[in-house]
Each structure stands twice: as structure tokens, then as C-alpha cells.
């Protein structure tokens, strides 16, 4: 059994690696897409600095950066540097290796994404259950309406609206993650509370779209499960409605939700990017936006790459999770 599970995980891992490989290809294509490549900028910089830019030098530089090579070779150079040296290239925007930039931002970005994700699931699952159990109640209508609105309002609009509401109510738009003076203060309860206060809007905005769609998925799944025969059978044997709900229905309805964890990362990353720009958060989203406006493609591309990899990793984990949670899926997977 365990050996089979391991085999299953390995097989999944293999497809995952294939997917990541394809993703890297797409990313590199995007990196090379902008019209003005970085070498032109580089040569301009040198010319300005008074250095002679002879055709020979340009050729030499092209060779150095592999730009005279076919796409595939350039790609190989790029990917092998990442794989073997963890070197994602150089950011001309910030004059530092892309790796350093990512290192600086990945923690806040990931923390924000993770917290949002926890928030998303912690909110949407109970609401989904509530709505399904109390179908057509006032609460159900209320949450359905909120859900629809949440899915309809673009993140950035929601960000702006909440920012304005906050300004109207408190006179402060709660930009960034900390109040003045808190950012560089030592960790304390006050700082934590401050952080929490500033996190409300970002988490709401990032999580909203996801929460709403998950809420609706959960509601639909729960309704499906509640209408299934086994619920009747369980009632017929004298089980409490509540016990049936939690032992059987919720558990079953959770399966599709659990399998969506990986894909929900896609929405969360989208949310983090936008919200970081609108609400001025110290996450990668802002840097990515600037990098794109400056066509600092190695930086932007690497971040895109990382986000995609994390999504793939997320789906891998949720696949394993599903296999672990659902005996049917498990036996199907294990068969091959």
C-alpha cells in the first residue's frame, strides 16, 4: 500500500517535472519577447559611460550573454544557470541578482499568500456548509449575494473601495503593512496588532474572489452530498442529522475543495500582485509591476516562473491530499 502510494507520488512528480519544464519554456519565451532587449540598454549604458562600443564588442557581448545563439541554446543557458547555480539572471532595474531580489520579497509574499489562503478556507468552508444546510434562508441569500458581488468586482476596484472606506472611517487608508514607526520597530504585541490591522484590507481583497467561488463550490458540493442516498441510509439507521452532516457530507464535500487548493494559488497570486500595487505592500507584486514597466524581464520572468512552479507544487500536494482523503481516488490512482 505504502509502496504503491510512493509509486503514485513518483508518477505525479514525473508529470510535474514535465509541466515545470514546459512552463520554463513559456517563461523564457516571454522574457525574450520585449522589443528592446537588455543588451541594447547595456550597450547604451556603456556608450554613455564613454566606453567604445565597437561592433566587435557588441558581438563579444552577445556571445557572453548567448544572444547570438539560437533560442534553444539561450534557453539552455538560462535554465541550466537556474537549475545548477540557482542563478535567475540579473535585474537591471535593481542592479542586483534576481535571486537576491526574490529572496528579499519571497517571505512577505508567501506569508501574505498563506495567511490569505488560510483565511479563504477558514471562511468559505463554514459559510458554504451553512448555506447548504440552511438553503434558501436569509443567511443563504445574504452569502450568495456577497459571493456574487465578490466574484464580480475586480480585485483592484475592491482594493480601492476598501481603501476609501477605511479613509472615510478612520482618516487613514491603511497603506502598507505597518503604521509609521512600526516597520522597523522590534517585534512586540503592538507591532503585531498593527500588522493585523493593516492586513485586513489586503487579505479581504486577495481572498475575496477565491473565498466567494470556494463558498459557492462548497455550498454546491454540500447540497449534492446532502441529497445523496447514503444520507438517507444513515438517517434510517438512526444517526443524528448533525453527525451525518459532519461525518459524511462535509468530509465528502471537502474532497473537491481540497483538490482545488493548488489552483486556488493561481487566484491568490493574482490577488497579491494587484493588491500589492494598489495598496503599496512590500510584496513581489509591486516589484513585478515596476519590472514589467521597465522591461526588466529577467526579474519579471523569474517571478512569473516561481509563481507557476508554486502552483504546480500546490496541485501536486492537493493531488496527494485527495488521494489520501478519498479512498476511491486512492485505489484508482494506485491501480495506475
Amino acid at each position, binding site marked *: 500500500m505504502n509502496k504503491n502510494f510512493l509509486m503514485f507520488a513518483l508518477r505525479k512528480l514525473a508529470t510535474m517535472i514535465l509541466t515545470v519544464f514546459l512552463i520554463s519554456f513559456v517563461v523564457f519565451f516571454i522574457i525574450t519577447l520585449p522589443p528592446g532587449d537588455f543588451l541594447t540598454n547595456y550597450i547604451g549604458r556603456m556608450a554613455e559611460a*564613454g566606453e567604445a562600443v565597437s561592433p566587435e564588442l557588441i558581438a563579444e557581448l552577445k556571445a557572453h550573454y548567448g544572444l547570438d545563439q539560437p533560442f534553444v541554446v539561450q534557453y539552455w543557458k538560462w535554465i541550466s544557470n537556474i537549475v545548477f547555480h540557482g542563478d535567475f539572471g540579473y535585474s537591471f532595474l535593481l542592479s542586483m541578482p534576481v535571486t537576491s531580489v526574490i529572496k528579499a520579497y519571497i517571505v512577505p509574499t508567501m506569508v501574505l499568500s498563506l495567511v490569505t489562503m488560510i483565511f479563504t478556507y477558514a471562511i468559505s468552508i463554514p459559510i458554504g456548509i451553512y448555506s447548504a444546510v440552511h438553503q434558501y434562508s436569509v443567511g443563504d441569500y445574504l452569502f450568495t449575494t456577497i459571493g456574487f458581488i465578490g466574484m464580480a468586482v475586480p480585485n483592484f476596484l475592491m482594493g480601492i473601495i476598501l481603501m476609501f472606506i477605511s479613509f472615510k472611517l478612520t482618516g487613514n487608508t491603511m497603506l502598507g503593512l505597518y503604521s*509609521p514607526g512600526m516597520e522597523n520597530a522590534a517585534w512586540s504585541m503592538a507591532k503585531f496588532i498593527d500588522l493585523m490591522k493593516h492586513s485586513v484590507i489586503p487579505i479581504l481583497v486577495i481572498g475575496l474572489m477565491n473565498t466567494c467561488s470556494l463558498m459557492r463550490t462548497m455550498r454546491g458540493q454540500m447540497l449534492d452530498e446532502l441529497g445523496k442516498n447514503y444520507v438517507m441510509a444513515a438517517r434510517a439507521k438512526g444517526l443524528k442529522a448533525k453527525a451525518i452532516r459532519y461525518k459524511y457530507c462535509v468530509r465528502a464535500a471537502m474532497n473537491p475543495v481540497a483538490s482545488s487548493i493548488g489552483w486556488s494559488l493561481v487566484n491568490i497570486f493574482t490577488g497579491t500582485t494587484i493588491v500589492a500595487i494598489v495598496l503599496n505592500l512590500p510584496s513581489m507584486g509591486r516589484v513585478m509591476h515596476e519590472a514589467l514597466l521597465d522591461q526588466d524581464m529577467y526579474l519579471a520572468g523569474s517571478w512569473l516562473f516561481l509563481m507557476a512552479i508554486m502552483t504546480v507544487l500546490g496541485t501536486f500536494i492537493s493531488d496527494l491530499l485527495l488521494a489520501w482523503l478519498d479512498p476511491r481516488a486512492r485505489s484508482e490512482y494506485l491501480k495506475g
Partner: protein
Amino acid sequence: MKLKKFLALSLALIMTAGILAGCGGKEETPAETPAETPAETPAEVEIVKESPMLAELVAAGSLPELSERLPVAADIMVETDKTPENPQYGGTLRRNNGGEWDYGPFTEEPLFRLTEDGGVTPNVAKGYDVSDDGLVYTIYLREGMKWSDGEPFTAHDVAFYYNYMLVTDFTEENKIVSGYNGTTYNWYKTTDPADGVTKPAIVTVVDDYTVQIQLYAPKPLILQNIAIDNKWMFAPKHWYKDIVAYDTSVEHWTGLSHDVLGGAGLTAVTEEEAVANAAARNARFTFDDYTQLGNQLGYMYWSYKDRPTLRAWTMDSEKTDQTYVFVRNPYFWKTDAEGRQLPYIDTVEMVTMDNALYSQEMIAGNLDMASVDVGDFPTYKAGEAMGDYTVYSSVQPNWTSCSIELNQSYKDPQYAELFANIDFRHALSIAVDRNEMNEILYAGLAEPAQAAAPAGTAQFIEGAREKWTEYDPAAANALLDGIEMISNDRNADGYRTFTSGANAGKPVLINLEGHEKCNSAEAIALMAQYYKEIGIQLIEITNTARNTRQQKVTNGNEIMALYEENLNVFNPYVRPDRVGANRNICTWVGKYGLEHAEPMTPAAGSEMEEIVNLTKELSTAATMETAEAVGEAFLQSHLDNTWIVGYLSVTSKYTALGNDVKNFDADHISCDELRFYGNAKPYTWFMEQ
């Protein structure tokens, strides 16, 4: 009229500076203003002379006594005229982060400071002497002065910078080679009119606190040039030792011994080793190559934490941080008139966010200071009471606040010809309704004006600001109709096309790049609509900002024109960048006092050739008269040729400042040469606690 006063003085004092330079400089006499407590201070009030924050460190034994941190008493620089009544130590000043060229000047400490009147005043240097022949400048440093890490600052730091970082070689083609800085300054080159030979200055160590600059031919404006373009003419040798590539076993281009050149104790370091050493010292100092290393750690050093400086506050954040924290330099070498070590404010925070958000942060009381975009003036003004701040206005001696500058070195020959055509530029000038633009962009705060020196300045020319400013699209169309190479009729999109050549049939298109710091999109959108009326297409290329803009101009194949919001012209012969050929977005000579390896040559007999020649002449001007004449000629050329098509006059520089920030001098003149807020000496501001 502040502006009038300032610029009248400017002319007078530049002349004085010239005279001084000609007849031998004066040495500053700091002894006259003793650093120790003046006698008139009442005995019962004990003046706190250092920030409590530092006093604590001293008490804890982790910092030497104040007296050990300051230079010897006689060499302390005393800020006499900016000493406030009852200053208070401490506090954090939170302000907007305008990027490295904003927070850099804010804390900058040059060797010599350019004054509002165009002269220079010693700053890091204590004083200087000029030899009678104008060839040897002896510069005196402050004894006991220390870098922010406590290491002594000496003449070796100056000579080391010049000889091993800035001018590492001098080629047979008279080119200065800078291995490190990424930039070289041709202002150090002088040409002897007698033999026509050009050589760079030689900088040597006389003793620990004296350096000497030896010129090949007289150059009366050398100190201004240093004050403007190479103000940080020193570097902590102890810090750079192993990350500067130089082989001291080889003879230096000067032929002098390395000891005299500040190279004592240096060993051979290759470029690769330097890059590796830097990365090994700190992961943050990982660079792609030596040029990058030089450009970043050598040139833009103030963005890097741990690099010792002489500034009032030093960077204490990573470049990737959203808020840059600048902490006070415990070894800062200036005191106020009452002997208090400066600065008063402990910490400065520069908060990075979208430009549009600063106003709301200011109003919400989350910032103490913000530089106001003119377009946002109404918002800031309306929020004064709510945010408990005041919007101050300062003078900017700029020529225009909205202009377009065609790239005169654009490589496409047809466009080059078109851009060189004065009728074309004039057509662009009168195609625009300046009054309407003023309303839309600046809420009517500016005035319609051609790009020219404002009234009250020494460069002011009667009528220059009114030239070609009358809105007249019909006349503009007539001017364009007269240009043969472009069609009189319009294509399907409503644009004129080229009638012949490689671009035949293609619309006349100007790819314009906005400026990252400006809210240029709206202005450019307006211009595009006016231009469309005369059949010219204007497109804003993505606002690529940062350090790539000038490079793209230099490349000459992408950017056809630049939009400028604050065309800053200080004085054409002190700094011809804007009006001379240097920075007139062309590659004829170079810019910021730099020179190009392969300068382009303008067409013989063209107006541009004249300007290029003038620029060259200025760089070798041996007397003030020549320099002045060149300056006059520059102004005349601009008047005649409308090189820069200006639409609106400059407005005041607006600053929103929290009401608890005291001693801010709104009367300071704000421009690049005077280092913007640096000119208001932020280290003399204090925050009411």
C-alpha cells in the same frame, strides 16, 4: 522677488569666483567661528551637544566621546546661519522616496558646495589655495574628521578615489579611462592653447590633510565643475581596497609613485577578483560584472548600507526594502553655532509608494514631508488642516515645466533632417494651446512660455519667453506644408507622411519618452492631440525610467524625443549640460561632464555644429571672458533655434511639510546643481517632540 535676487547675485558672484580663481583663492578661516560654546551663552543653561540616542551609546561604552568623534576643534564645520532658536534632538522624519537622485542629494556632503550665487564654498574640504598661474589647487582637509564607521578621513581617500577609481588610465587618444566609476569626468582635462596638448589633472597627496590638484592648463571654473559634477571626490580607501581592480606593480599613467597618488598599501586586484571579493564580503554586493560593481558601489554608493560616508545620515536598509531608513552618522563633522553636533533629527525614513498615494498619506498624517507634484497642489493644499502640515513654495530657476526636446542625434537620416529643421520645431511650438494646457495640467499655476530663462535671472533675455508661443494651428500647418520631405495631405489616420526616402508613405511619428518622476502621461496625451491637428503623430513609449532613459537616447534608434517637466538650467557656462550640446539629448559630446568614446559629428555648418564647437571651446576656456562669451552664445543659439520647445513656465517647487518639522528654509533655491533639498540643509531641521 527671491528669484530675481538670486539670479542677479548669481551672475555677480560667478564673476567673483572667476576673479578669485584668477587672483588666488581665499582660505576659509574656521577659527573665527569657534566650535566650542560661545561666550554669550548663559552659563545656567547647559546645552545638550549630542543626541540622547548617541549619548546613551557613549554611556554604554559602544561609542567614543563626542570630542573624539568630531574633528579637531578648529576644523569642525559650524553651521552659523542656520542655527535655530531652541533645537531639539531626536525624532524620525518620514518622507516620500523620490529615488536615488532624491534621497542622494538630500544627505549629500560635497567637497565644495555650490552656492546659490554660483560660487563655491568649502564643505568637506576646509579650504583651498590657488597658485598664481591658476594651475595648482591646494585643498585643505579637516584634521580628525572621520568616516561614518569611525575610520579617519584623510588626503589619501581623495587621491585614491581620483587615481584608482576615477581616472585609472589616460589613453593616447586623450581619453580618460575609468575602470570603476562607470563615468569619467572630462572637466579634469585641460588643453594648453600653446601646444594643443590635452592632459588630465594630476591629484597628489601632500600630507594627511592636504591634497593638490595640478592642471595642465588654467581652468577658472574647475571648482564649480567639481562642485557640480564630481562633488563626492573622495572615497573610503580602507573600504574599497580589495574591491577596486588595480595593479600597483604597474606604473600609474601619471608616472608618479603610488604612495603619492594615494595608492600606498594597495596590491594587485583583477576585475574578477574585485567582483568576487565584493560578493564574498556581502551577498548584497553581488554584481554581474565589474562595470556594474563600479556603477553601483562606486558611483551610487549612497544606496548601499555599510558603505561608510561623510553624510549626516547613512543608509541602513536594503535596496529592496520598501522604506529606506537613514540613521544619523555619529561621526558627523558639523555642529551648530552653539556647538551641538548635527543633525538634530535621529532618523530619516524614505517611504516608497506610488506617486499618487503620497498625498493621501500626507493627509492621513502618515508622512512628515512630501515633495508635491504641481498637478496635486490643490489636493495637498486642501488637506493642510486635516494632515497638520503646510505646503511651502520654493524657487526653481528652471526654464520650463513642460517641454519637448527632439533627439538631435536620432540615427534615421530623414528624421534627423526633420528634427534639424527649425520650421518643424516652430510648428510644434505654436500647435499647442498653452493656456488650455496650463488649466488642465497645473490648475493654472504656471504661465504659457517658451523654454527660456525666467525673468530675474542672469540669463534672462527680453522676449525669449514669448517667442513662438501664440497658439496658431493654421500657421503651424503652413510651416509644415513648407517642409518638402513631408506631405501636405494626411493619411487615413489623419497624419502627414514622408514623401520620399526609406520612410516614404509612413506617417510622421515622434516616439516620445516621458519622465519617470513626472506625471507626464496627461501632458503627453494632450500634446499628442494638439499635434494630431497638424498631422504629426506623437506616441509615448513606455515610461521606462531609471537609468535606461539616457541610454536609449544615446542609442538613437528608439527615442525620438524627450518630455521634460522640469528643465533645469543653472548657468550655461558653469554647467552647459542643458543648453550646450552635452545634454541636449544628443551624443555629440557627452553629458554630465562625461565624454563619449565615439562622439557623433554634426553636419558641417549646421547650427548644431556651432553648439558642439562652443561646448568644446568652453571645456578649454582659460579665462572667465571666454567662458562668459560661450555662455552668451549658448543662450543666443537657443533663442534662435528653439532647441527645446517649451510650453509652460516653471512653477514654484512645492513641499508639504508637517507642522512639527522646524527650521525648514522655504527660501532655498531648488535645483539639481544646488542639490534640491540638500540646499535647505536638512541636518539643520529639527522635529518638535
